[in-house]
């Protein structure tokens, strides 16, 4: 046990010795150490969220062919701190008709529901909050709290646009939760465990993106919808309903929603990396030491975050009826078919070598994708023909 190979246990052991030396009982010392761990993890992720403000602004600038923040500090790195100071010293306005308690609780819960996710993220094989044996469902449960926060915020503002935004957002979030949970079942099934560390470890041979590329895509799409980012950002469709459920929020309360959204996007990038791209593993490089593994994981999560930003700043917004139809008529059936096929293949191919299983699963996925695209094409053709019958060419 040394600092380089097992830093958490090393520091915990040192703290335990120190605290029991001071006369604390062992149980109390354990709880205190846990508390320190929790605090470090949460504060760390919040610092990350501050950094993400800078990343987001810089990346969107590049997408729009601008430079982005560059005045304060090198490459504008100090800019997010200036933003925070501004948010803190802004006047906090609460509408007189708002439901005060719920109004104030909503942003706290919104950020907290994202922070909760960090408890189960394994950053390296021995750096993680807790290795929960129901971690996959814990992820869904934390998302449920986020949904609740949005509906509370929208309702308590007592503003019709806020309420409408909240309803749209909640309808989107709960709808897209179904395909997300279904594809969460696929890594669970392949790994035979719900613990995220178990899922990462079982990808040592082959990343699940090779076995279930379609599942990865569905997870990514539903994660973007869950985040309420473009193209699914109709909660804040400025041209229609001003700013969605957080119209009435000012200053730091708005800041909490904003920080929650950015951290949520990054965290979901992390989950994509974790479930489908081998988490902290990178061709044996992670064995060099836990800090290398953490770097690998954060790099993969950042890549996932970048893809989510890429989607956000490229796609136009989708109308709500199209959005829900896309989920219920396309994504959910596809995810269910994928689950059934994966389960059957997983069972039937149990004896084969790993490369064989991976190859067959990959080919099956390609086949399913091809059939789906063909069906969509036929459907689209039929739709177009129906349109042409209704409105002959030239009469628009």
């Amino acid at each position, binding site marked *: 046990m040394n600092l380089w190979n097992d830093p958490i246990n090393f520091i915990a052991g040192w703290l335990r010795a120190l605290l029991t030396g001071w006369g604390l009982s062992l149980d109390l010392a354990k*709880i205190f150490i*846990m508390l320190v*761990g*929790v*605090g470090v*993890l*949460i504060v760390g992720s*919040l610092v990350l969220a501050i950094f993400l403000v800078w990343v987001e602004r810089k990346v969107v600038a590049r997408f729009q062919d601008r430079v982005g923040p560059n005045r304060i500090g090198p490459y504008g790195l100090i800019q997010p701190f200036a933003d925070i100071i501004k948010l*803190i*010293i802004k*006047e*906090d*306005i609460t*509408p*007189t*008709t708002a439901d005060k308690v719920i109004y*104030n609780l909503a*942003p*706290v819960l919104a*950020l*907290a529901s994202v*922070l*909760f996710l960090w408890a189960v993220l394994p950053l390296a094989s021995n750096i993680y*909050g*807790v290795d*929960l044996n129901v971690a*996959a469902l*814990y992820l869904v449960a934390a998302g449920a709290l986020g949904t609740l926060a949005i509906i509370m915020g929208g309702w308590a503002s007592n*503003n*019709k646009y806020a309420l409408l935004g909240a*309803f749209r957002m*909640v*309808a989107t979030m*709960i*709808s897209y*939760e*179904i395909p997300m*949970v*279904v594809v969460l*079942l696929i890594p*669970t*099934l392949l790994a*035979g465990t719900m613990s995220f560390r178990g899922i990462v470890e079982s990808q040592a041979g082959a990343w699940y993106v090779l076995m279930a590329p379609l599942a990865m895509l569905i997870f990514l799409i539903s994660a973007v919808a869950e985040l309420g980012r473009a193209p699914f950002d109709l909660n804040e469709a400025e041209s229609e309903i*001003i700013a969605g459920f957080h119209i*009435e929020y000012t200053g*730091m309360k708005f*800041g*909490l929603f904003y920080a929650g959204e950015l951290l949520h996007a990054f965290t979901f990038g992390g989950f994509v990396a974790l479930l489908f791209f081998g988490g902290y593993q990178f061709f044996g490089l992670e064995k060099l030491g836990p800090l290398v593994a953490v770097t690998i994981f954060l790099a993969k999560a950042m890549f996932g975050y970048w893809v989510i930003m890429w989607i956000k700043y490229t796609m136009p917004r989708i109308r709500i*009826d199209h959005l*829900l139809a896309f989920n*219920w*008529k396309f994504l959910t*059936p596809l995810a*269910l078919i994928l*689950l*059934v096929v994966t*389960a*059957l293949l997983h*069972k*039937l191919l149990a004896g084969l070598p790993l490369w064989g299983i991976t190859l067959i699963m990959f080919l099956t996925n390609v086949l399913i994708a091809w059939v789906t695209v063909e069906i969509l094409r036929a459907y689209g053709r039929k739709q177009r023909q129906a349109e042409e019958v209704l409105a002959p060419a030239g009469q628009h």
Partner: protein
Amino acid sequence: MESDWLYIGLFLVVGLIIPIVPLILSRLVAPHKPNPIKQSTYECGLETVGESWVQFKAQYYIFALVFLVFDVETVFLFPWALALGQLPLFVVLEGVLFIGILVAGLVYAWRKGMLEWA
């Protein structure tokens, strides 16, 4: 096992407390000069028109309903997915039957036109 849940519990408590800190900080530092116009609800810069409680589409409710049933069913599938490795093939088919019944509900709602934004 037990310490896992203790950790989660501590995490939930601390995770709820820490976001409150900047709010308190803001309360201490920020100016506070309320006036009725500032504190009225915001509506595109115009005066608020009509009741702020609008009747919204019942369609939202239908989607929530379909979601509720699917949510419970997918939760049922997690134990099945975990046990898959140790069980014979026909148990896998049991799960497939379960998913089939689930899909029947989806097909019904679809055919009835409940998934349209009517």
